[in-house]
């Protein structure tokens, strides 16, 4: 037997070259640069405007009307998602209910609101006064009624919220249901054996675990909702897109205002993407032995070490066995 004193030498070999990758990268970069360059210079040389097209973009970018539009876009997104998530949880629990009438109603709701376009739904709520002129609430067969004119109750703002939120509820219901059924049945049994009732089981055991499955698609839905809120245009919702269109109509700066809208939407979705990352991380606790580092932590680590970070010092917990159950 040989001596084990010297460790085996590291392999030194010529790596395989990939010229195809270089060519492909170059082609993609050239085509991309050409497309972007064309758009940028076309806007810059827009002869219909005094001065520069880009000046127009910059001029309107922080216009109070636009800023208020951005604010309203965020308000629509947040409120519609809140409405959608609450509805979604309720509908999902209803669909899984042992009472088949309740389950059936939930199915019907999802079928209807997922099966018709959001644009149509927003427009429907916006025009509700044609169908119902007054909305009242009270105790039947008595004179105790509160009644209001539909138009004063369903303002454009409310119509947009109803359209977006009720539609979102149908999608969220399916997302939440997928999350709920993804939780192992043993969890239910363990909780029941401890004497928990259905509500406690759902709230403390099932839903927190379902979150890991629910969060990523919900993040998608939120980003999607941010853009879908532009459909409020049909109901003069006065959010970002409505505002840019109003300015475009008045100034003929059609492309410029579309660019203003696009930049704002891109900025907002970027912020949401980062937010989603951290929420996912939070709900992943307990699902890995050690959470991966955030990009920021990795960056900090890189600054400290000045080169590619060495493998993490994963210290296995004392007494850790080989089974991964």
């Amino acid at each position, binding site marked *: 037997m040989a001596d084990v004193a010297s460790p085996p030498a590291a392999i030194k070999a010529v790596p395989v070259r990939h010229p195809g990758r270089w060519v492909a990268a170059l082609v993609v970069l050239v085509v991309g640069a050409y497309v972007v360059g064309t758009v940028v210079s076309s806007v810059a040389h827009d002869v219909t405007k005094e001065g520069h097209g880009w000046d127009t973009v910059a001029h309107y970018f922080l216009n109070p009307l636009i800023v208020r539009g951005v604010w309203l876009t965020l308000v629509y997104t947040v409120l519609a998602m809140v409405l959608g998530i609450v509805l979604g949880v309720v509908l999902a629990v209803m669909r899984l209910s042992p009472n088949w009438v309740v389950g059936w109603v939930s199915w019907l709701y999802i079928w209807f609101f997922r099966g018709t376009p959001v644009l149509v739904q927003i427009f429907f709520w916006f025009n509700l006064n044609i169908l119902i002129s007054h909305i009242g609430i009270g105790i039947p067969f008595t004179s105790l009624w509160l009644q209001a004119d539909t138009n004063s109750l369903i303002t454009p703002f409310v119509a947009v919220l109803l359209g977006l939120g009720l539609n979102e509820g149908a999608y969220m219901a399916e997302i939440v249901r997928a999350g709920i059924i993804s939780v192992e049945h043993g969890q239910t049994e363990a*909780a029941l*054996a401890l*004497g928990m009732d259905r509500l406690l089981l759902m709230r403390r055991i099932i839903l927190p675990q379902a979150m890991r499955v629910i969060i990523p698609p919900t993040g998608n839905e939120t980003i999607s909702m941010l853009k879908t809120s532009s459909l409020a245009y049909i109901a003069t919702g006065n959010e970002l897109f409505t505002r840019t269109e109003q300015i475009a109509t008045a100034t003929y700066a059609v492309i410029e205002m579309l660019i203003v809208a696009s930049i704002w939407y891109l900025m907002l979705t970027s912020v949401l993407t980062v937010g989603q990352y951290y929420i996912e991380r939070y709900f992943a606790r307990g*699902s890995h032995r050690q959470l991966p580092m955030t990009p920021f932590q990795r960056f900090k680590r890189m600054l400290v070490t000045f080169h590619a970070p060495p493998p993490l010092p994963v210290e296995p917990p004392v007494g850790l066995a080989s089974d991964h159950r």
Partner: protein
Amino acid sequence: MAAAPMVKAESVVKNYGRLEVLRGIDLEVWPKEVMCIIGPSGSGKSTFLRCINHLEKIDGGRLSVDGELVGYQQRGDKLYELRDNEVSKKRSEIGMVFQSFNLFPHLTVLQNVVEAPIRVKRESRDPAVERGRELLERVGLAEKMDAYPRQLSGGQQQRVAIARALAMQPKLMLFDEPTSALDPELVGEVLDVMRGLAEDGMTMIVVTHEMGFAREVGDSLVFMDGGVVVEEGKPRDVLTNPQHERTRSFLSKVL
């Protein structure tokens, strides 16, 4: 021994559709008794255990825990199904340990242990946490209190599961093959905890394949096959001198 059995089963029947899983089980478990149930897979031993805390509904016969029917109430000569909250109440008095641990992965070890005492029994947090610590110390996991279940070995997880069940101060503990999912080297630590429990006088029903444990710790041993109790007696007697051919052939394969 006390005057009344802790668990009393009289010709208990359970069907899954047309499949008869339990075909008339008669058993009595007395307070402080440790009963081990052995038998081939599919013999109905786990199902019987799950009937005791009403995770499964029985289709025939009578099953009572501490003198009260499981899942029903008798008034006159009529049986009334119990409401969900009444069933939950009774379950909270019976501890159960599962083959696959079923710890709550999103909660730390300590949170797993104190969750039910705080939420179900509505104990205040501080004494519950205090007792949770003591229980974890008792199963030798005091230093793992803030770890998440997935950071533990199988044996450690199962010991936490036992502590979690004990935190409800149950009058009866059910063990459903508690060591079957463990690496052989980890079986001992779980059995040690169970042995300690038995010595403290806990009433236990243990479905197991650990014949050594059944012999040393068990007060009685039941051999089940095909949904019936084939043989019952002192562990030493059943293991060394089985009366039935079925028992003999089963034991010859596992011993």
